[in-house]
């Protein structure tokens, strides 16, 4: 691959930084929420009003109904919602990551033994990019990347079991490209270098 243009590098750094940034609340957030809860004191009433009435009577589904939520329950629901938002947006640096656009562990796991890893490659001239590795039997058709906007930044998130994984990108079905931001796997057997990522500590 040719040398990366500094402007392209800057762009991809910005995007990667945005992808990794977490949702931040200012220091007074908790204080303000609690003050509001104490101030309101009364249950919060939420109404679901049907959006359209049908002639001939109400169906169960369209009947207006109310829910009562205590301030404490409301706060708990808000906290749960905030946690979901944060979990969905925080991107932690994985073990094995190098600066730049290295794969990031998205901190969302179906099981403790699996982590979701986001892979990113900048390839402005590519029309198709796929991820291949020991986790998808090196099948170029298994894990295509999606282009982000029109900047030629390709990305995909993959659930990976804990452990050390070897991988590469395939550009336009022919060009094998190691991840420029991840360590190279040593001991390549086929003259096409791979990259390596270790998810978690390792598999035991």
């Amino acid at each position: 691959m040719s040398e990366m243009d500094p402007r392209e590098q800057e762009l991809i750094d910005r995007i990667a930084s945005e992808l990794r940034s977490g949702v931040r609340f200012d220091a007074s957030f908790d204080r303000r929420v609690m003050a509001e809860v104490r101030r309101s004191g009364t249950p919060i009433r939420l109404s679901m009003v049907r959006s359209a009435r049908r002639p001939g009577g109400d169906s169960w589904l369209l009947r207006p109904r109310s829910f009562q939520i205590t301030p404490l329950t409301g706060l708990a629901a808000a906290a749960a919602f905030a946690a979901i938002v944060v979990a969905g947006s925080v991107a932690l640096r994985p073990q094995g990551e190098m600066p730049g656009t290295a794969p990031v562990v998205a901190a969302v796991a179906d099981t403790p033994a699996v982590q979701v890893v986001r892979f990113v490659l900048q390839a402005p001239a590519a029309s198709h990019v796929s991820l291949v590795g020991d986790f998808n039997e090196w099948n170029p058709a298994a894990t295509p990347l999606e282009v982000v906007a029109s900047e030629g930044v390709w990305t995909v998130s993959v659930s990976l079991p804990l452990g050390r994984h070897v991988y590469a990108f395939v550009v336009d079905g022919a060009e094998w490209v190691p991840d420029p931001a991840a360590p190279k796997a040593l001991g390549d057997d086929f003259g096409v270098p791979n990259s390596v990522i270790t998810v978690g500590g390792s598999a035991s």
Partner: protein
Amino acid sequence: MRSLILASLALLLAGASAAAQLDARLEARLDARTAADVQSHVDAAAAAGLPVEPLVLKALEGASKGARGPQIAGAVARLHTQFVEARGALGPRSAAGEIVAAASAMQAGASAETLRQMRAARRDAPLTTALTVLADLIAYGVPVADASTLLIELVRAGARDDQLTDARGSVQKGIGAGLSPAAAAQEALSGPPAALPVTPGAPAGSRPPVVRPPTP
């Protein structure tokens, strides 16, 4: 040499066994001869209680990369031999994960002697993480001798797996900050002993990590 003989014997035994069933993935993506060659290694590894899936994946990697049949069979044979050597160094009761991690470390340049010393230092707990960290440090560019010495020392000192992965993270940060891999390893692992506390209840004879700076 001994490992090669053992691998060959295992191969012969596997070949003599009942007609082996060809892995469907090999059949689909390799020519018949290469698939049969690879399958013979898979069967031999299975018969010897060694991991087999990495052998299949190695063959599939070669197929996807367009490698020729003999090249693929050769790569699988090398990996098979590394598994045999890794278990020889780690002991017959080694777990599959340890063997795979040890093979990665050996592929990166670590010696069988390093593996033996690590096993001697930690007999009753898995070495998978330690071996993975060793392979990773070498992949980051830490000289093999330095990485090997450091991991042996840390395991001898009773460092827990999470401490080993923390050390690896520190090396990464150091490299990211512009240090050379060797200097980053030295920086990360020459911190105060408190940074790498010995596991509570560690076996008698455990001592705080002895940090030996990597050779320049």
